[in-house]
């Protein structure tokens, strides 16, 4: 193995880490903080991807000169629309299912099927093409043998920005304070005058909006179609569960270890075997640490 191959692979691991983290961060909030097992999380990512697609069409038709900027707007639109859909979902469906995890799973799984078919009706069964903006096409070549795709660099930057924003939101804002207090002790938070229902809805909406951002960014790497969400959902859940359900740091650490291990395994094993090896490792790890890598030590 040459040095170029090795260095590229180190970058690939880093890139996979940020992709996984970006996918998982929304679910870490919805599942980790709120305890809602949202099986339709993948479809919300697909919604983000479709919103980016629609934005690209609008720009191509009405603002072709600003096409280079569409992707940034697309990410914002994806966050806004997916967040709004999340808010509506929480108000009309999820809030009736708190403390009924099995019912939540069934209901959100059904929702994922409905959304898939809805995308199929609206956008057709065939994948749509989301153009990659010109300034993110191609690669940066630090040496002739190494090609670092600009799209992956962008995703690394985006993930760091999103992580920072989530940190500031949860730990440095009024809203974050309310969210954390409701998650820690709902009754006390309510008694202290916090509108817990409102907090639930906003938290869920933010988690969904983050899924939209992930879906939007991943259009550069993968497909945008009715079943796009299915391609992400399993990895997303594994990252969150492996990291420890109630810990955002755990989610990042889990994404990092899975990303690095998977890309190293893939170098020496076939893709399927690498995946199997990762799953096996996760199972063994969960056997010894049932609450994930970063379980909070709390009295129950």
């Amino acid at each position, binding site marked *: *193995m*040459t040095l170029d*191959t090795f260095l*590229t*692979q180190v970058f*690939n691991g880093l*890139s*996979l880490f940020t*992709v996984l983290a970006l996918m998982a961060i929304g679910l870490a909030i919805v599942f980790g903080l709120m305890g809602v097992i949202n099986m339709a999380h993948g479809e919300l990512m697909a919604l983000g991807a479709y919103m980016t697609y629609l934005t690209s069409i609008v720009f191509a038709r009405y603002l072709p000169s600003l096409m280079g900027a569409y992707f940034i707007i697309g990410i914002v639109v994806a966050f806004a629309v997916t967040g709004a859909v999340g808010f509506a979902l929480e108000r009309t469906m999820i809030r009736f299912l708190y403390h009924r995890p099995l019912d939540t799973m069934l209901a959100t799984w059904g929702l994922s099927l409905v959304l*898939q*078919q809805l995308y*199929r009706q609206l956008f057709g*069964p*065939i*994948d*749509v*093409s989301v*153009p*990659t903006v010109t300034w993110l*096409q*191609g*690669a940066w070549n630090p040496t002739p043998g190494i*090609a670092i*795709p*600009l*799209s*992956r660099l962008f995703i690394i930057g985006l993930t760091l920005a999103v992580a920072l924003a989530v940190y500031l939101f949860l730990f440095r804002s009024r809203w974050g304070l309310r969210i954390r207090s409701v998650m820690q002790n709902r009754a006390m938070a309510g008694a202290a005058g916090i509108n817990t229902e409102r907090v639930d809805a906003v938290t869920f909406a933010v988690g969904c909006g983050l899924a939209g951002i992930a879906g939007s960014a*991943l259009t*550069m*790497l*993968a*497909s*945008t*179609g*009715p*079943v*796009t969400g*299915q*391609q*992400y959902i399993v990895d997303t859940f594994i990252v969150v569960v492996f990291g420890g359900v109630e810990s955002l740091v755990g989610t990042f650490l889990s994404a990092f270890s899975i990303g690095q291990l*998977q*890309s190293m395994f*893939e*170098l020496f094993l*076939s*893709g*399927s075997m*690498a*995946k199997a090896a990762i799953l096996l490792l996760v199972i063994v790890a969960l056997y010894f640490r049932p609450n994930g890598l970063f379980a909070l030590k709390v009295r129950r």
Partner: protein
Amino acid sequence: MKNNRRDFLKTAIATAAAGAIPSSMMLASRTASAADPVKVGILHSLTGTVAIAEAHVVDAEKLAIDEINAAGGVLGRPIQPIVEDGASDWPTFAEKAQKLLESDKVATVFGCYTSASRKAVLPVFERYNGLLYYPTYYEGLEMSKNIMYTGQEATQSVIPAVNWLAKNKGKKFYLIGSDYIWPRTTNRIAHPTIAKAGGTVVGEDYFPLGTVEFSSVINKIKAAKPDVILSTIVGGSNVAFYKQLNSVGINGHNQPIMALAVTEEEAIGIGRENLTGVLSCMGYFQSVQNPVNAKFVPAFKAKYGADRVIGDTMEAAYTSVYLWKLAAEKAKSFDVQKVVAASSNLGWDAPEGHIHFHVSNHHLWKHARIGAFKPDGQVDILYESPLIEPNPFPKLG
């Protein structure tokens, strides 16, 4: 509306009355009169994950049925299609197949796309002695007396592809595919073919269906420096594979890549710019030049829209309907055994050129075509093989 209701009432009364007639008298009315429509089933996934490919196949089959009806039907009887949705779910396929055969008593069924769905309905067709026309290119290794296979089996695509590549592009092959029976069987056929052509396999990788992360294997491919990448990746993974290849500067122009499972329809989702120069091997491309195809393509576009494109499986499905019609007319009967017997050596001028059934193995003698994707998503045909004999049970390497 009023008329419809009256018709419905009449039918209801007639049915009720028929129920009262002793069954011996029913026999007379069973022998359908000449103008009665002949029922056929169409069984594909209109919903669920596979709908991406299958929904369009239904369009092609309906076009053939409309054309045949406009020209007077089969044996003087119009065709009445009954469309069922397999919903990308294999037990549903089996249920719907049973419904079509048992309660609708269809003369034949055009259906299935994935091998899994075909395997699910196969015992149903054998039990009820039904007839299925299966239009997808597939791995072979099957021959049911109740199924006619109108797509190419694996040897008809991978052997000509490998031979052409070894002659024109180079002899070091990297095999990459999705992890299920079709890519694995295809590559087991590819191995001895590559060896025979004097080539070597420098890498072989399989990824679970739906994989969207290919950066590591692309790195491996770069390190292995193959002359040719032979890809049997299917579905949404293809989008990720070609996007990620392009993002590190590998494309159809600087690296020969042969895709065995990318049709023109899928080019749209992959992004035509990502696919330019990539090679494909199929039985049919929309760009085939012959008088039949010159009528077929505009007819399809007139019915379904000018922006629609036609892929290999859609053409095979369209051809299936005509092959059934010809066989029924040759047999002068809709009886399954007679239609199958009449299909032996039966030929037709299809949009893909003149093709004909094998004398006994239920598969078609077909051409293989190799072409390169152009920026508009259509394929520039570089090579066309003579008719290749189907060999569904090859010696596997």
